[in-house]
């Protein structure tokens, strides 16, 4: 009976289909069953001798098989092709890739950028100014007349023409106040110079100056701003404030953070103090306001100054300041 044969054929087809593993099998299979001279066509041809009813019935069964086969084969082919590409072609995957190395910014630049971002968030304006200064801006206007022993605090490089290399970024306070009318909030990062060279001192280093002048910014606010800065820079960290002295601020203070090396227990880095001094600050001295013609009854403000290298040394655990200006590649690469 032909219908039984067709039934048998269907079983055979699906059994054979299961055996297809690669494109060759697939092609053989296709020829065997779906080719012009394939089995399905052969049966279809046989049908011409049957009754119309049977022709219709068996023909539709055969066509159904054919259709289903074609669909499944397409899927099978895709499956094989995808699998084909999963093959290990013998590439050595342990070899490194083709590198396009990026450079780095200098650690000092990075710290300056970080600090600037902190103060930008608070609405401080970043300004820059000359590195070669006059006695007036560097000292006199900041209430450090030439007979003042405070000048010993800053060993100064003088130029032969009488100018000097600024010993701190504080002259920017004067320049900023002369150019602007209060209220104002500025920070001024930049290079400064002092006649001093050892493992802790470089004749050239960087500072960041801050100044805020308004109707009633006060000493408590200064503490608030400085604590905010310390937390942003070093994370949750203990700070303390000590009275200090700078001729251009009154009252003056110094801020220490808990030593990051020993967590306050005392070590070589902090000289057993458990604290690291990181900045000086204070309320702007009235003499400074007078030198820029600000009405001291109207305005008050605070200023602060910090050493960038010092912050970098604490943050990165560097013990010799000179390494910043040697610029060895291995050192620079560490800041990727």
């Amino acid at each position, binding site marked *: 009976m032909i219908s039984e044969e067709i039934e048998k054929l269907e079983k055979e087809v699906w059994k054979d289909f299961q055996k297809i593993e690669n494109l060759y099998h697939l092609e053989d299979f296709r020829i065997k069953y779906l080719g012009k001279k394939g089995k399905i066509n052969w049966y279809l041809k046989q049908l011409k001798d049957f009754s119309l009813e049977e022709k219709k019935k068996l023909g539709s069964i055969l066509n159904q098989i054919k259709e289903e086969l074609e669909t499944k084969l397409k899927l099978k082919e895709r499956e094989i092709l995808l699998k084909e590409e999963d093959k290990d072609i013998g590439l050595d995957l342990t070899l490194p890739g083709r*590198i396009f190395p990026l450079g780095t910014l200098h650690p000092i630049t990075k710290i300056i950028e970080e600090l600037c971002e902190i103060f930008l968030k608070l609405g401080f304006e970043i300004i820059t100014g000359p590195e*070669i200064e006059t006695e007036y801006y560097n000292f006199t206007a900041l209430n450090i007349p030439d007979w003042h022993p405070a000048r010993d605090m800053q060993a100064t490089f003088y130029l032969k*023409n009488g100018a000097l290399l600024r010993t701190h970024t504080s002259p920017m306070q004067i320049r900023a106040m002369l150019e602007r009318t209060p209220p104002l909030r500025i920070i001024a990062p930049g290079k400064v*110079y002092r006649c001093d060279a050892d493992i802790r001192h470089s004749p050239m280093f960087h500072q960041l100056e801050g100044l805020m002048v308004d109707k009633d910014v006060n*000493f408590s606010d200064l503490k608030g701003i400085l604590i905010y800065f310390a937390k942003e820079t070093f994370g949750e960290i203990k700070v303390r404030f000590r009275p200090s*002295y700078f001729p251009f601020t009154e009252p003056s203070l110094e801020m220490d953070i808990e030593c990051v090396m020993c967590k306050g227990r005392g070590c070589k880095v902090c000289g057993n103090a458990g604290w690291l001094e990181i900045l000086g600050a204070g*309320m702007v001295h009235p003499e400074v306001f007078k030198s820029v013609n600000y009405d001291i009854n109207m305005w008050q403000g605070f200023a602060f100054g910090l050493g960038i290298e010092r912050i970098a040394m604490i943050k990165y655990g560097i013990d010799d300041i000179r390494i910043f200006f040697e610029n060895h590649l291995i050192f*620079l690469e560490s800041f990727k």
Partner: protein
Amino acid sequence: MKVPLSWLSEFIELEIGPEEIAEILTMGGVEVEAIEDPYQSLGELISVKILEILEPQELKDLVLCKVTDGKETFTVLTTAKEQVKLDLIIGLAKPGSMTFTFEKVEIKNIKDYKSYGMFLSPYEAGLGEEKDKLLILPQDSPVGESIYKILGISEKVLDLSITPNRGDLLSILGVARELNTLTSWKFKAPYFEDFLKEGEKFPGKIEILDKEGCFRYAGRFFRKVKIKESPFFVQKKLWLCGLKSINNIVDITNYVLLEFGQPLHAFDWEKIEEKIIKVRKAYPKERLLMLDGIERELEENDLVIADAKKAMVLAGIMGGEISGVSEKTENIFLESAWFNPKRIRKSSQRHKIVTESSYRFERNIDPEGVIYGLLRATELILKIAEPEGYSEIIDIYPKTFFPPQISLSKQKLTKFLGFSIPSEEVEEILNKIGWVKKTGYGFQVVPFSYRQDIKIPEDVIEEIARIYGYEKIPITFPKSSLYSPEISAQLKFEKKVKNLLKSLGFFEVITYSFIDLASLEKLNLAEDDLRLNFLEIANPLSITQSIMRTTLVPGLIETARFNFFREVNSLKIFEIGKVFFPTQNILAKELIHLGILIMGYANKEVWYEDLRKFDLYDLKGYLTSIFENLKIDIDFVPYSSEPFLKRGISFDLYLEDRKIGFAGEIKNLILKEFDLKTNVLIAEINLEPLLEKQKEIKKAYEVRKPPKYPSTFRDVTCILKKEIKIGEILDFIKILSIPYLEKVSCIKIYEGPPIPEDEKSITIRFWFRAQDKTLKDEDVNKIQKEVAEKIFKRFLAKPR
């Protein structure tokens, strides 16, 4: 400033230990740098046991002892023949240590014998008067142990760093007062008996001729003092503070200086001509031989103490050799004065002399301390120099010092600090720094005479805040008007350039702004080159950092060299920093430059490509990328005029008609002078004109849409003379105004067989696109054919 706690406790009852005292002082604004034990600082002064005593003939008076410190046995020579006994435990200073008398102990060789140290007397150990005895330790003492540990002796000395405003803290008394201010521990004020205040008639005359230089001058005459060594307690106190003992009179002046902060000076009365003491300006070119053995030429602004004929002392700074106290001195004049701090400072700086005395005078002293100092010295002289008599105190004080009256309103105090402190508490604090009067609005304060630093209301506010405690001050945030300032164009620009270079694989460096003239000279610049017109540092730390840089080149080459000698064979660095030029004014012209340096290999040793050295096209490529990203057209004009660059491998860089920099390979001969044996390419660009240009450029991007119609390309390959530059051909193509041409570039250059030796083969690719249609092949072919012919004709090229 060294403060022995034992001395300090003579003036204040110390209720707690050294660490806690240090903490209180530090938090009060008096920084404690260290807590020292001077005995421990002497080094290894230890107990040893005598094992054997030998008396070699050739050593005469010396005996040789074999001793042990428990670990080693070694020999020690001593003259104390009678005192050494077997098994005795005795104090020894080991080589490398120091004794109380500031003697450095070393290994001694006498004849064939060695002495590994020195037996100590109690005096040499800083323990007592006795000099001729050996320091014998209890027989049950451990050996090899510190003698001070065995004897239970220690001294704690605070090393204070005093800020320049607080001259009043440069004394034991001052620190005691400060501790009293900060803690209210019981203060023991010095007291002087009445008989110290009077005396015989002063046998000479004192005149202040320079009243601007000397505010107060006091003194006293002592008859027939015995100049001798100071008693041990004086010596020890000086030693604790790091001072050497000289003789009793000099020691007393130092003692009072340390204790009261009042510098004193003792004169040999016999050396004072006509017994007249004048405080006057120095005469122009007047000379004075000083205690340090140097004769100095003085000038009019120097203040001197003179007699009828000559200057005796550079006032407040250093005494003269002639008028000083010596062993032969019998009668002395003791000076106690208050000099103008500014004058002392200027003289001290002019002559480069800083002494304990000048240091205190320039930080200003207590005007009242002038007399107290003299009284304290009298007390000590009576005790240890046994004078036969002394005179009344002569006190010339032309203008009595009145401390300022400072008004401070409660309202100002609160506004300044940001919080309010109860009036009673403020008053209590103010009572510690001066006389206080409550007024309607606040307080009136008259600071004590030693607080010369308190002058204005802000100074008083600081004292209130400090004594109240900075830690207790609340933490608030400023209340301020909201405004958002713009970031300056210059900083934005610098940041952009830095980040571009970083993405191109460059490392940023920062080199010193001062350089070595020699390294600038190595660049072989022409005599009239502006870069040789530099600013010089008057007081450089070293000759290698003595001129302000006018170019970044030397710093970058030095950096390359530093790396090259430390195993770096491939380097890409840049620096953005200032160069400095003199102007008509005192201020310099400061320009921001960009320097770029590439050295050695362009790549690392890797598996996928061969090592290749950096060449000009690398540098040009980097620069092109930067300029493109900055949207600034810079012309690379071949053959730089920089004398340190290889002419054929360099460009000058132009922005419009202005030279803004250069780029190229450094001459080998120049590199050799920098001791650098590798290839180095460098570029330096003045960023200022670029920044100006950048400001003109609109922020908006020139946005292009994806093309609607396809492009097509055609190549022209031809053979032409080697010397014809690709740039010339591309320039020529530019002026042809070829229709539909979108882009053109040279994609291949070939030299070598079969092309003749003086020729090369090049391929130029043309991309065509129309905005409104798809171009037809025939049309493009026609255009290309015309272009090719024009090129062949113009450059005498043959098709290939």
